[in-house]
């Protein structure tokens, strides 16, 4: 999408790109928002007028270059405009999460020293007024939705309409200053500042320059051939880097239309009405959608269910291959075409995904069956890997090379290398400038050559060049022979079986890996009931020979798939036992968010770990348990330990050792 008329060198800021869009496709829709039941739309020219009025208004209200402008609200054109308007004043937009409580907001607003705050509605205004009691930097609040705010003290508060009125009145006086300011923006000026969510410590303000945003937008738009005719639905939090790249960066670079839903609850209906061609959603969204489809299918009549099943069988067989351009038999092609008319076409339409040309998911591992479901419908759903510090893109999957277990190849303009400890590092034009007012963290994250540590461990597949993320780097260790030990990678594969609730893989510094398994009482209990297996306690069910047999099969299957990866084949589970109690946060074995605490488990079950490695067939153990009322008790059990077949090189090594 490089422009022929305007030299690229001049397109070094978002406002400059906006001006280019007005010149190139001024009459095309830039923003749409559903309000009062109707899609209101603004062309690029109209949007530019609105933005300019805002910018002049902001300047008139005393906004100075280098000031920070916080934006708190749902996805609305006015909020996107406010961000561009702030840039036109030389100020820095800082979108914040709208569901943050006042205390969280106090830290962030205090940290960036925002002088102007754009609030979506009364709720946000109230929070900011509360914050204002402890912070005095804020001297102006602008609100978009006036409802309930009529009686507030307006000495230092304006509506957006009022702001724009001011701007239009002062256009002659301040217009030239705005033009000068925009002309002065270059690749090194700050484009936006985004706060990381702060799951570890205080939120950090990630400063992204125009270079970061525009180069990333350019490269990623080229990668997926995005044009001005794309439609996206802006529904992800504005404070998230992804929304900034999709709805501001790429939208303004490619000149496509950003559609804002009426509200968070109308998202599905609005999706259906717009039919986006470019769509991003975290795995959770796809998962919920699939579940609701499945539930509704189960409630449907027999004929519909039969049709759906037949359709989906064909789709699973032929859909992904057709998407990837692989050969498909004529019979399947015909069946797929029929299925598209009767089953997946209408289904896609219901989901609002009929027109999706490029879809992405990221953020966490997506279940293969969920991923495959959407792919088989003919939706080009791909995965990407990124983070705020990278302006999103680190790797992404090219069309035709899509799999559920990789995150793709390095995005254009991004260099990726794997550190000695398996950690993924990247360097790109999108790499953030710094953490705001936090040189220490900047230095520890980004080295002088510009390489940034992701904190994730991964490796490149030799055959395809795709990156695979296996675990958080701090959990990854080495086995006695020096090969990589990635417990979570194997555990995730194990937990994919309904009968396995939790798995703990042990093997750091050892010769081979072993596992402790927790069965899922509801799934296994259900299975026992259907197979007439009587049991009186969790412990008895866990120790049942048939259960052991089934778990052994599951682990063998996992071993087989782990063996496919030469780098990870050392992580195959050689021996396992089924625990006699459920791992429980009350006993300190897990965190409250149900993450396994490895150190505690290694310590507490030291005798079991010993038995897993000394070759014994069973072990008698006593374990302390904490009941919900805080009393403590002891349970004792004799656990069996079972060997599991392993595959590939590991199998040969095992034979040799014997």
């Amino acid at each position, binding site marked *: 999408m490089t422009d022929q008329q305007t030299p690229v060198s001049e397109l070094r800021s978002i406002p400059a790109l906006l001006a280019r869009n007005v010149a190139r496709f001024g009459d095309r829709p830039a923003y749409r928002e559903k*309000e*009062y*039941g*109707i899609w209101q739309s603004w062309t690029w020219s109209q949007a530019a007028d609105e933005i300019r009025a805002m910018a002049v208004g902001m300047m008139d209200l005393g906004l100075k270059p280098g000031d920070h402008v916080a934006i708190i609200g749902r996805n609305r054109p006015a909020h996107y405009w406010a961000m561009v308007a702030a840039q036109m004043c030389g100020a820095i937009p800082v979108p914040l999460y709208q569901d943050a409580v006042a205390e969280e907001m106090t830290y962030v607003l205090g940290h960036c020293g925002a002088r102007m705050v754009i609030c979506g509605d009364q709720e946000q205004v109230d929070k900011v007024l509360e914050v204002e009691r402890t912070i005095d930097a804020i001297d102006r609040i602008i609100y978009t939705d006036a*409802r*309930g705010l*009529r*009686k507030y003290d307006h000495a230092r508060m304006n509506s957006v309409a009022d702001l724009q009125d001011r701007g239009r009145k002062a256009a002659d006086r301040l217009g030239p200053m705005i033009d000068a300011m925009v002309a002065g923006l270059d690749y090194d000026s700050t484009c936006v500042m985004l706060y990381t969510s702060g799951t570890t410590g205080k939120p950090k303000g990630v400063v992204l320059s125009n270079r970061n945003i525009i180069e990333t937008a350019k490269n990623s738009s080229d990668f997926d051939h995005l044009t001005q005719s794309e439609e996206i639905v802006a529904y992800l939090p504005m404070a998230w880097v992804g929304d900034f790249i999709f709805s501001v960066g790429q939208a303004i670079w490619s000149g496509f239309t950003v559609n804002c839903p*009426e*509200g968070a*609850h*109308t998202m599905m*209906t609005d999706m259906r009405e717009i039919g986006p061609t470019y769509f991003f959603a975290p795995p959770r969204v796809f998962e919920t959608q699939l579940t609701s489809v499945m539930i509704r299918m189960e409630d449907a009549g027999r004929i519909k269910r039969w049709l759906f099943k037949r359709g989906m069988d064909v789709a699973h067989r032929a859909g992904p291959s057709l998407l990837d351009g692989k050969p498909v038999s004529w019979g399947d092609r015909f069946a797929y075409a029929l299925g598209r008319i009767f089953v997946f076409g209408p289904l896609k339409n219901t989901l609002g995904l009929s027109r999706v040309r490029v879809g992405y998911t990221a953020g966490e591992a997506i279940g293969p069956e969920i991923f495959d479901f959407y792919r088989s419908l003919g939706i080009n759903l791909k995965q990407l890997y990124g983070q705020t510090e990278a302006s999103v893109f680190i790797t992404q999957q090219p069309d035709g090379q899509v799999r559920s277990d990789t995150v793709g190849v390095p995005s254009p303009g991004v260099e990726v290398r794997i550190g000695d400890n398996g950690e993924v590092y990247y360097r790109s034009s999108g790499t953030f400038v710094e953490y705001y007012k936090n040189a220490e963290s900047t230095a520890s994250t980004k080295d002088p050559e510009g390489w940034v540590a992701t904190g994730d461990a991964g490796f490149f597949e030799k055959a395809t060049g795709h990156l695979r993320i296996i675990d958080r780097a701090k959990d990854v260790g080495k086995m006695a022979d020096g090969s990589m030990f990635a417990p979570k990678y194997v555990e995730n594969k194990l937990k994919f079986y309904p009968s396995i609730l939790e798995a703990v893989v042990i093997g750091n510094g050892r010769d081979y890996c072993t596992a402790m398994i927790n069965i899922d009482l509801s799934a296994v209990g259900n299975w026992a009931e259907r197979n007439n297996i009587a049991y009186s306690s969790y412990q008895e069910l866990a120790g049942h020979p048939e259960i052991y047999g089934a778990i052994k099969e599951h682990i063998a299957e996992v071993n087989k798939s782990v063996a496919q990866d030469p780098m990870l084949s050392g992580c195959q589970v050689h021996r396992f036992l089924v625990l006699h109690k459920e791992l429980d946060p009350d006993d300190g074995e897990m965190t409250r968010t149900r993450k396994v605490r490895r150190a505690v488990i290694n310590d507490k079950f030291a005798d079991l770990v010993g038995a897993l490695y000394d070759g014994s067939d069973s072990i008698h153990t006593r374990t302390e348990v904490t009941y919900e009322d805080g009393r403590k008790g002891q349970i004792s059990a004799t656990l069996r330990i079972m060997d599991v077949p392993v595959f590939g090189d590991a199998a040969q090594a095992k034979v040799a050792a014997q």
Partner: protein
Amino acid sequence: MNSMTSDGYITADGRQIGGKLMELKNITLRFGGVVAIKDISFDIRQGEIRAIIGPNGAGKSSMLNVVSGFYHPQDGEVWFKGSRRQPMKPHQVAGHGVARTFQNIALFDGMSVLDNIMTGRLNKMKAGFLSQAIWWGKAEREENENRAVVEQIIDFLEIQNIRKTPVGRLPYGLKKRVELARALAAEPQLLLLDEPMAGMNVEEKEDMSRFILDVNDEFGTTICLIEHDMGVVMDLSDRVVVMDYGRKIGDGTPDEVRNNQQVIDAYLGVAHD
């Protein structure tokens, strides 16, 4: 209510309340031999939130039905907007700017939320049958105008996501909100709410309270409501009428009513003669 004059008064939170929108003088309502309302007088002023409370069977709903014009009292006078109101049909009452919601939700279950709210605009539609049938000219223009008003209300009550959902599929709390929307669609000067919070959980009550206050604040609608939840009534209303056994036993601000011995007796119970 020291500052009360015939022109109005200022509420505790600083709102200006106007003159009398409705005045009920010496109302007595009988059903055969049963006296439901005995010689009650009170007024409803422009812009205020007026509550009618009382124990079960006190005659609150009958009183609301007199206010709405559905019941015609045997004795007494109803003055509305400065003139004495003659007995009239319910649709005529609606035409005069009075709308209401019901204790037992009275919506059309099979129709969408949007269509239900549109029925609240029926009084404003003047296009002839033929024009409506072919949906051309005046009918089309009218529908667009009315739809615009309805959409404002949908936005105001935050029910955009259920616009096209049949009312029968909605949970109770939302049905109540849709009923309020329909009443608002008539753009009433006087809005009557018959137990708007009955059967709601705390969160739904908070939402509904917020909406009632917002309606009063944004549209300046005068509201008269019956409610059992004392906390809600005391928080929402500017003035309260208390009824017991068909008689008025108290009238004033929530504080005045709370300290009225007769009211306390009626609620806590005393030995009757």
